[in-house]
């Protein structure tokens, strides 16, 4: 019996146009199916339909037939449907209900009425399977993001469900956490489990999926095997869904007449397939501007958390950041990125060292002076919405800094127009999309025109198009207003494409600082902080391309550009 059969399924939220229509999908036992599509296309909604959440928990107009292990979900209770399914969603915090890891993993089995010896066996099995026996007695809120999500996976695995439904389980994790979770999913796939998975990092799950289903324009546009993906480049491009960089590189090189086989996403495996191609070096497109004056001057900065943590989160960092530059700060969680940023913004007072902006020590400024000098956009835009509607929220900051209301509205209009939010100025901020709320958070700080803006993970949960749109806006701000923009991020492709400089942190120390083209060369050094260059840059490192390509277009130009002499060696 097939785990999932969707027959002519459609869905609309109350009072909204249909989100899904004519969805037909069958998932066989033991298959691993990746569901991809642009933000807002209905991927999570489709997973909710498969898990029975729709129509039992979320209401709306569901049409067609949904069968899970042969049972029509509309005719069965959610509790019964869910007893066969392990469901993992994006935020582990919302899926941990117990304080101790062992209790969390046992809880699902308690609910299913397992006998106590069976619960003990299930607990041990799940801990071993996800290689987390050392977490057994730990407190759940003390775990890292990756550990929490592995506990959630283990808690869903313990009652031995027949199907796993995973909704972008690594989207809120740092690279090391994502790697831990992906290795858990890999183990599930290898053990023959049936998995339906939404995952924005197709590159990372490439090796474990059997089929890729593209959801676009409310229905399934493509259902193909992994190895056939590069034949459908146009469809993925039209849907704004990135293929793994090297898979797309291979497809686009072939279209430019370069005879290369289908490339795997891993640069180590792809490099030998391209070793016969020689590219002429080209001039760097982004020469470093040595003449810009220093805007942010960090000297010997250290920060140690007070007891009981006592962690030395930032350790003797020296940095000189020029005016008008866009700087990416990278490193795994716990490497000190956010603590450094909070010291730079004055939210934390350093244990040693100093931070000055245009020669003034930020830690000697009042709250208002700091807000006017170093703007800080926090990761979650929902934590920064204080007023209704959008226009009032943007005006809030300048008025606090002493601007007249007329002047504040004038500035707000300029920023809202630049960020494409002027038309929605009278809406409640929570009616905007996640990307819209993220732009609003940036607008609310940009309107105060601080010389320095720090943005913590501005692209979390955004699709590729929105991520690039936000980064482009930040770069434009830096260029037009001469602002220095510091971006904390895990998205290396955005650092490569949009940042002039990057700073890599490891255990609170600055291990690399310079243009991305230079920093990404030293993969060995970056590996200790779990930073991987974009696949095309890593490929450039292996092929010795000069300068290193930072974007897909750079790589195509190096290998097949009309100005290049491509020779077969």
């Amino acid at each position, binding site marked *: 019996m097939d785990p999932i059969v969707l027959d002519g399924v459609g869905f609309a939220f109350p009072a909204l146009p249909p989100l899904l229509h004519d969805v037909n999908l069958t998932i066989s036992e033991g298959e691993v199916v990746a569901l991809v599509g642009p933000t807002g296309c209905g991927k999570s909604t489709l997973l909710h339909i498969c898990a029975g*959440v729709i129509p039992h*928990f*979320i209401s709306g107009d569901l049409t067609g037939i949904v069968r899970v292990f042969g049972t029509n979900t509309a005719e069965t*209770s*959610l*509790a*019964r449907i*869910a*007893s066969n*399914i392990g*469901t993992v*969603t994006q*935020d582990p915090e*919302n*899926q*941990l*209900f*117990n*304080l101790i890891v*062992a*209790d969390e993993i*046992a*809880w699902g*089995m*308690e*609910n299913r*009425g*397992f006998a*106590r010896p069976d*619960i003990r066996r299930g*607990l041990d099995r799940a801990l071993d399977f996800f290689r987390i026996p050392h977490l057994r007695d730990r*407190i759940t*809120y*003390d775990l890292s993001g990756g550990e929490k999500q592995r506990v959630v996976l283990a808690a*869903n695995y313990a009652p031995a469900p027949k199907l796993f439904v995973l909704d972008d389980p690594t989207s809120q994790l740092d690279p090391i956490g994502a790697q831990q979770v992906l290795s858990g999913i890999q183990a599930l796939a290898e053990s023959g489990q049936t998995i339906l998975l939404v995952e924005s990092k197709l590159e990372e799950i490439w090796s474990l999926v059997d089929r890729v289903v593209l959801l676009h324009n409310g229905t399934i546009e493509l259902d193909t095997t992994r190895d056939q993906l590069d034949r459908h480049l146009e469809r993925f491009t039209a849907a704004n869904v990135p293929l793994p960089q090297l898979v797309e590189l291979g497809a686009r090189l072939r279209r430019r007449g370069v005879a290369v086989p289908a490339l795997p996403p891993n640069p180590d495996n792809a490099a030998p397939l391209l070793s016969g191609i020689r590219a002429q070096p080209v001039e760097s497109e982004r020469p470093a501007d040595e003449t810009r004056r220093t805007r942010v001057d960090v000297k010997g900065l250290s920060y140690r958390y*007070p*007891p*009981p943590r006592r962690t030395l989160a930032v350790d003797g960092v020296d940095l000189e950041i020029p005016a008008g530059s866009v700087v990416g700060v990278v490193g795994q969680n716990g490497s000190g990125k956010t603590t450094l940023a909070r010291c730079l913004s004055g*939210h934390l007072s350093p244990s040693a060292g100093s931070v000055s902006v245009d020669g003034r020590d930020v830690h000697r400024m009042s*709250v*208002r002076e700091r*807000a*006017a000098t170093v703007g*800080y*956009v*926090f990761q*979650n835009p*929902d*934590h*920064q*919405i*204080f*007023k*209704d509607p959008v226009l009032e929220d943007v005006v*809030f*900051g300048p008025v*606090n800094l002493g601007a007249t209301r007329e002047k504040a509205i004038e500035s707000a209009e300029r920023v809202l127009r630049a960020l494409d939010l002027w038309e929605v100025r009278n809406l409640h901020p*929570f009616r905007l999309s996640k990307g819209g709320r993220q732009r609003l958070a940036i607008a*609310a700080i940009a309107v*105060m025109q601080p010389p320095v803006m720090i943005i913590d993970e501005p692209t979390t949960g955004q699709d590729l198009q929105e991520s690039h749109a936000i980064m482009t806006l930040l770069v434009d701000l830096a260029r037009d207003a001469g602002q220095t923009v510091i971006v904390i991020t895990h998205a290396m492709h955005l650092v490569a494409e949009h940042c002039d400089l990057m700073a890599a942190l490891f255990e609170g120390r600055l291990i690399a600082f310079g243009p991305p083209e230079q920093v990404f060369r030293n993969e060995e050094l970056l590996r200790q902080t779990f930073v991987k260059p974009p696949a095309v840059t890593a490929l450039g490192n292996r092929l010795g391309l000069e300068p290193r390509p930072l974007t897909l277009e750079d790589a195509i130009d190096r290998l097949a550009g009309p100005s290049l002499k491509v020779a077969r060696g």
Partner: protein
Amino acid sequence: MRPLYQFSGQDSFLHRLDPRTKLIFVLCYLLISFLVPQPWVLFFLLIAAIWFLAGIPPTEYYPFLLLMLPIMVAITLVHIFLIEGPPYLWSTHLGPVHISASSPGLHVGLDLGFRLGTMGLAFTLFAMTTEPFQWGMSMYRWGLPYKVAFMFAFAIRLYPLIQEEFIVIQRALKARGSNALSSFNPFVFFPGVVTSAVPLGLGAIRRSQDIAMAMELRGLNLPDELGQPRVLFRDVRLRTVDIAIMCGCLVILVALLSARLFTNWLPR
């Protein structure tokens, strides 16, 4: 530094006691603090007990002590000036009004202040050494419906998350040039609280919906649906030491109460 309710997660004598035992101990201790003439002894005894029997030094919960200090000082000051002497520590006349600080007022004020402090500390002991789910499940054993007991414990599990969110919101307000939440001026502070309630409240609503869905998917309602009894993996039972401590607390309380009511050993 620990938030007001946060289980410390250690393994100690106090951590291993049943929550019901600790609850009885805390209640008896509070009553005893009103029976003995030197409540400050009980206050410091409790700090020592938390340190040596639970392994938690005062540096771990000093924000709580700091929070209690102004209340204890205020109570003492009120009594110093309200209770008449003699003897007087200080006195003056403001026209017809006689203002004085009396020695008996100081004693009564200190006694009450330390009693209040002892009550707060007893709660801290319970909070830091009692895993909320163990507490919830022991309440379930005493007859509270499972979902009520579980949700009660879960609310405490959520507390650190909400506290973290509040700190971020406070910083986000500062980033917008508002220092309202750090202000001592109530006309600035309370509007700041209202402003920060928007993101905090909406975030909590969104989170609670996601959590309710996730709980449903993990089978919270399955036992009711199938009509089968709920199994508890970690059984919560009273051990001999728990019963002994409960009995000991009650015996001491009754003894002190009797001494207070029927003898002159304890001043009334």
